């Protein structure tokens, strides 16, 4: 009995205090998911942030728990695709790419760190580019492009789409135009100043 009480007290003490923003029932369920993720070596912080996002946005408890569980499952899927050595940012980007429709083979691109490549893939899909076109572009560019080049590539494609170009055509055109070479030739880190997302 005493041991059980001590275990419960220890568990309460180990809970992340940030989760106090959740109602008790939701907090308990989210804590179970977070602890399970920790036990299998998955990053806990993305799960906590997803729960906090739901709390701040006033989402109902069951919806928050569902979102956290889904993210935990997807982090596991991303790790299976990327390997045990993948970092937490890479796993998060991998989740975004998988949800965007990328197949696990895209995660095999030889370019550590993969965070930016996978994020750009997901962002292109969010802009309306078909998943296979986005994946093909990232596979073509990632091995030789820097992170800044990939961001610039994504911005250029988004600009073309905003100007009326079909998303898939805009993507392939920019890839074929050797956009990365142009960016690389003219890129200079320059003085440190805040950049835009």
């Amino acid at each position: 009995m005493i041991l059980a009480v001590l275990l419960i007290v220890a568990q309460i003490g180990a809970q992340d205090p940030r989760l106090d923003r959740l109602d008790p029932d939701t907090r308990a369920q989210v804590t179970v998911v977070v602890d399970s993720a920790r036990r299998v070596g998955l990053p806990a912080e993305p799960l906590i942030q997803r729960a906090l996002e739901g709390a701040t946005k006033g989402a109902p408890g069951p919806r928050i728990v569902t979102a956290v569980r889904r993210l935990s499952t997807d982090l596991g899927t991303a790790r299976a695709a990327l390997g045990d050595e993948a970092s937490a940012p890479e796993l998060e980007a991998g989740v975004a790419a998988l949800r965007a429709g990328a197949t696990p083979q895209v995660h095999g691109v030889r370019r550590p760190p993969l965070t930016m490549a996978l994020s750009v893939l997901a962002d292109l899909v969010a802009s309306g580019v078909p998943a296979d076109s986005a994946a093909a572009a990232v596979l073509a560019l990632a091995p030789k492009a820097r992170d800044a080049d990939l961001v610039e590539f994504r911005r250029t494609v988004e600009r073309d789409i905003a100007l009326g170009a079909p998303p898939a055509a805009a993507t392939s055109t920019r890839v074929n135009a050797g956009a990365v070479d142009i960016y690389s030739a003219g890129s200079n880190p320059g003085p440190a100043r805040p950049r835009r997302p």
Partner: protein
Amino acid sequence: MFEQEDDIVERVIQQLRRPVAIDPAMDARVMQAITAPRPSQRRVWPWLAAAALLGAVMFWRPWSRGSDAERPDILQFVLVAPHANSVSLVGDFNDWDPKRSPMRTANGIWATVVQLAPGRYRYAFLVNGVEWRADPGAPTALDDEFGTPSSVVTVGGKGS
């Protein structure tokens, strides 16, 4: 009477002039005491060396010289909202806490600067404490599970 006093003085003088037996090793001991390092000097040098080492470590800060993959980036978030009374930036980087990153306005253009470590972050703007807005200048988050728009920013670590 004066003769008696002179006699006493004479005897004192003779007593003082009498050679005194001195230890032959005295000179060596005196020289050793003079040339030996002072105890305080022996204690100060290690401290000075340790302080110099600590100063060098603090100056170079090897723990903050991570690889490019760990280097944070400085980002400016901007939202044009001329009629807003308050705008907060909330996201994965500030625990979705509106109080952590209030934005400042100049002629209806709200802005704030945040330092982010490499990673992929979801975020949104909270206008007047009730209205959620995505960043029009950033990619949209595909997985919007809470019914309000969010944006995504990725901080890379390789030449970003």
